[in-house]
């Protein structure tokens, strides 16, 4: 087991280093040129470009730039945002907290619903209910998140408010405008969590269904039924336990990406967080934010992938040998 963990940890570190290089090339070579953004309104384009490139260290070779940047990064010198003059490290720290809350509730909510749908569909395959959930999964996967978010605001925020004639909407479409407390917390998070969950539920429930179908088709299930255990026990105990590792792994794999992937939800509900940070940075040409942002999110994703790997090894001992 120790060997298994050690091997996976080392592999993750290697992936992280290679990913940082790839990210560096993408941001520097395929992203907007910081010097050009600064010289947009300069009359002496050529001189301006040259001096800015020199000042930003962009005249050096790409590997040299990478070494410079990583050196600064590990010393905590993440630079300051050109737009807000705020330290990038401080903003990202705040953003992570905001996004983590949303991501956590999204994972809990989506995971629970997906589990229930998957188990139901697999225990009654090709029933009317199964077909309904399959259709809903198709709809969920084709649903544009940003459009669904706006529809939620239209109908569940404004619509319900009109129906009940309350002063404040029942579900807020912006971060909590009034008071604190658990009730307001719920009213604030209900819609964003619903919106980010649609695609997650659609895809996770399909995984749970197919893992559960596979588990229910195996011999130990037939044995359990044959020795007289009730169907319910067999499904919820034998079937579920043996199918759960697949769902947990998928959740762990997607969880990391959520930290960098809530761009749409945060944008629709005007929430602060990692997504908003990146979006305003790219739209305003605030290039200083991009690299630290990508490295932090990349580290989180690789971290969760590692968790998924280890989790799978713990839950399914066969994986450890391979």
């Amino acid at each position: 087991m120790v060997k298994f963990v050690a091997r996976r940890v080392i592999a993750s570190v290697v992936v992280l280093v290679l990913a940082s290089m790839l990210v560096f090339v993408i941001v520097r070579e395929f992203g907007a040129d910081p010097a050009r953004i600064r010289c947009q309104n300069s009359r002496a384009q050529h001189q301006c470009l040259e001096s800015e490139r020199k000042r930003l260290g962009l005249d050096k070779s790409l590997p040299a730039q990478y070494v410079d940047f990583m050196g600064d990064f590990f010393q905590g010198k993440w630079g300051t945002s050109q737009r807000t003059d705020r330290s990038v490290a401080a903003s990202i720290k705040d953003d992570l907290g905001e996004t983590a809350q949303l991501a956590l509730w999204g994972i809990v909510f989506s995971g629970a619903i997906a589990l229930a749908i998957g188990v139901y569909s697999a225990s009654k395959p090709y029933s009317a209910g199964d077909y309904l959930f399959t259709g809903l999964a198709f709809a969920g996967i084709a649903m544009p998140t940003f459009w669904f978010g706006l529809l939620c605001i239209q109908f569940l925020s404004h619509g319900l408010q009109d129906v009940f004639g309350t002063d404040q909407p029942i579900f807020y479409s912006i971060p909590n405008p009034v008071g604190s407390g658990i009730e307001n917390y719920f009213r604030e998070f209900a819609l964003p969590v619903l919106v980010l969950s649609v695609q997650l539920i659609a895809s996770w429930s399909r995984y749970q269904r197919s893992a559960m179908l596979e588990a229910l088709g195996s011999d130990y299930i037939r044995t359990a039924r044959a020795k007289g255990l009730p169907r319910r026990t067999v499904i919820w105990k034998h079937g579920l336990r043996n199918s759960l590792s697949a769902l947990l792994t998928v959740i762990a794999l997607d969880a990391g990406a959520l930290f960098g992937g809530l761009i749409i939800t945060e944008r629709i509900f005007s929430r602060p967080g990692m997504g908003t940070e990146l979006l305003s940075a790219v739209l305003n040409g605030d290039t200083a934010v991009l690299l630290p942002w990508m490295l932090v999110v990349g580290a989180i994703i690789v971290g969760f992938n590692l968790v998924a790997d280890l989790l799978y090894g713990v839950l399914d001992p066969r994986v450890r040998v391979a």
Partner: protein
Amino acid sequence: MSRDLRMREAQSAEGLAPGSAALLLPEPSDVGVETGGRPIRSQWRFVLRRFLRHRVALIAALFLIGFAVFAVVWPHVSSNGVNPPITRALSAHAREGPSWSHPFGTDQLGRDQFARVLDATKKSLVIGFGAAALSTLVGVIVGGLAGYYRGWIDALLMRFTDLLLVLPTLAVLLIIATNPNPSFFGLFDLPPATEVGGMILVLAVLGWMPMARIVRGEVLSLREREYVDAARAAGASGPRIILRHLLPNAIGVIIVFATLEVGLAILEEATLSFLGAGIQLPDVSLGNMITTAEDTVGTHLAYLIYFPGLVLFLLVLTVNFIGDGLRDALDPKSIR
């Protein structure tokens, strides 16, 4: 299994990428045996026949074709333009809800939303199919080389593929789509993502990896077959074996995944344009139409967001249904 799970597009939580692959999980009960006694037909006749029996996919295909034809023909039939000159006569019809003369209503300036949505649909389809075609090309080349040659070529190509799969898709798309002067390592200039061509390139950069993994897996198993040995014994070169023997046999999965890629690309383009990083006004896209109308949410003008979004949703849904139908039709084990 762990590898298998990682293979799916695990990025982009809000589902720019996940999802589509989830619909393709094998179903234990799909496995059947072809019964004898039928007249011999060519493979494609079989595929066509099985596809036509898949009612949902057939309806979806007709719907999509109808949509495409309509989007191309409509501008020649209708007098309502996409960006007509703003005149007093036009403004007189501003903010009209859906009616027979304006099925999707008119916007604050009086422009016909139906004409605008159709123009945006045309763009969506061009970008979706273009990006999927390019992704498929790259994916097939990378996957074919990795699967056939194995060894260090395989290791190198697949490690790179995995690495790209780790990155958060939407974030990377935003970063490269907002570059106003994209170039290929300074060697030659590329069109910016505000144009259709540039958008196709941007989407293809992060779109080819699932295809590469799929094709590699398929080629890895196909290359062990006897007919490949026979071709090699007859002196066929590597590229010839890949092109003439391996890829034709992998065409089924390639088509299915290419179809799913179309839906994904349409969704990604709309999302980028919605966020302000893609097609810019006055060029219309389903995404930027919704951004423009965002402040109508909560008012009686909200129909301005309903129709572009609904069309976008239906486009992606139909493409995915077609992919599902093709999967069933191309699967030789299916008994339909």
